[in-house]
């Protein structure tokens, strides 16, 4: 596992957790919708790449989910960043990623 801090932009620390590489996961995702005060829920299934980003001082961790086998209709990208708490491992959906595969 590695982690680097970028001076200035971008506003996150990047890292890589090899233990998560190719692990299958689902994401109960979604995001605010531009120009509205609403949010859209979106569901994804794919495989984690092991890459992560930490935002803010908490930190707020996000993992990259790629090789998507399920994504919303019209979702053009092949990968999506997912909030760690919204990810569910297909092999053990009852536990968080940190519980199953400690990354730090």
């Amino acid at each position: 596992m590695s982690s680097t801090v970028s001076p200035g932009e971008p506003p996150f620390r990047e890292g890589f957790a090899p233990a998560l590489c190719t692990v299958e996961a689902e994401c109960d995702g979604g995001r605010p919708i531009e120009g509205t005060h609403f949010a859209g829920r979106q569901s994804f299934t794919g495989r984690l790449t092991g890459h992560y980003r930490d935002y803010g001082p908490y930190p707020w961790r996000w993992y990259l989910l790629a090789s998507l086998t399920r994504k919303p209709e019209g979702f053009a990208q092949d990968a999506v960043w997912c909030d760690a708490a919204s990810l569910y491992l297909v092999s053990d959906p009852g536990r968080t990623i940190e519980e199953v595969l400690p990354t730090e």
Partner: protein
Amino acid sequence: MNNPLHTPLCDKLGIEYPVVAFTHCKDVAVAVINAGGFAVLGEALHTPDQIASDIRWIRERIGGKPFGIDLVLPSSVPEEKTVDELLAMIPPQQREFEQQIKRKYDVPAPKIAPDIHHWGGLDQKRALDQLEVIFDERVPVFASGLGSPAFLLKRAHELGMQVWGLVGKPRQARRQIEAGTDVIIAQGFDAAGHTGNIGTFSIVPQVVDAARGTGVPVIAAGGVTTGRHLAAALALGADGVWTGSLWLTSRESDVNMPLKERLLEAETEDTIYSNCISGYTMRTTRCPWHDEWMSDAAPAVLKPPLQMILSSNYIQGSLDYQRKDLMTEAAGQGIHYVKEMKPAPQILSDLVEEALDVFDRFAG
């Protein structure tokens, strides 16, 4: 018989009635709080400075009572593009269809550019900047309207704040309860806007089961507009209700008058779950934009956020020129029961009285 409306949520908040008003209007929030309910102000679109200003405005008017602020934390984010890049991605077929609709219904051009053209997306950085204000102001309740608030719980609790999470699936509730979220809002498909696909009557008891023995109150959301809904939610095991559409037409609401009239006229069937507004499926009141995009002549709906870019001029034009015939607004299936423009305290009082009548009837 004890007061059936006095639930653990009332004790947790120090409120009289277990009714939460979710609103984007500060006047509605203040009116509901001062009448004995609770209010959560939706601030997702606002800058940190605007949020701070709104918090102070509310605090000056509620005499130390608690209140909440709702932000929409993202939980999945694709790579971002600039608005210019997005505009260039709209195919000619969909652009021409948008123009056809405008010509057919004489849709006026907006007076000002819709937000999307100068705002861009809400990403993690923006959410974090908004959260700093919530922490600085030590808002009594922070409600996350979408993403999990697990990452911020420790800091919020150290500051004495409550953190609420709105969920659309039982497993999201279990995950958030385990993380330490203080209150779970179980939102059903009946709700306004972008919901999960489980109905309120199905998701609420499942989330109540998930919370059993944890002391975490559950609030029912989605289609709640009457005292019967409130009584039913409590019968399902919820500790209160989360209401949104109910307040859109209140006298205090800043929703413009023709849109209020449109909402007062709306029936349940006039709310429609479609992706033609934003590219995401969401429940809004039906309008000509829906009719055209659901017709055989319509091209494919574009992915978010391109579809929102297409619809934003239509929506803003309808609002700027008060074209009731064109207007649409997010509204839940309970809109059928919203038929009068009443003061918010009266709405709350009517809700409570009807719920008490239900319980009296069952008590014999």
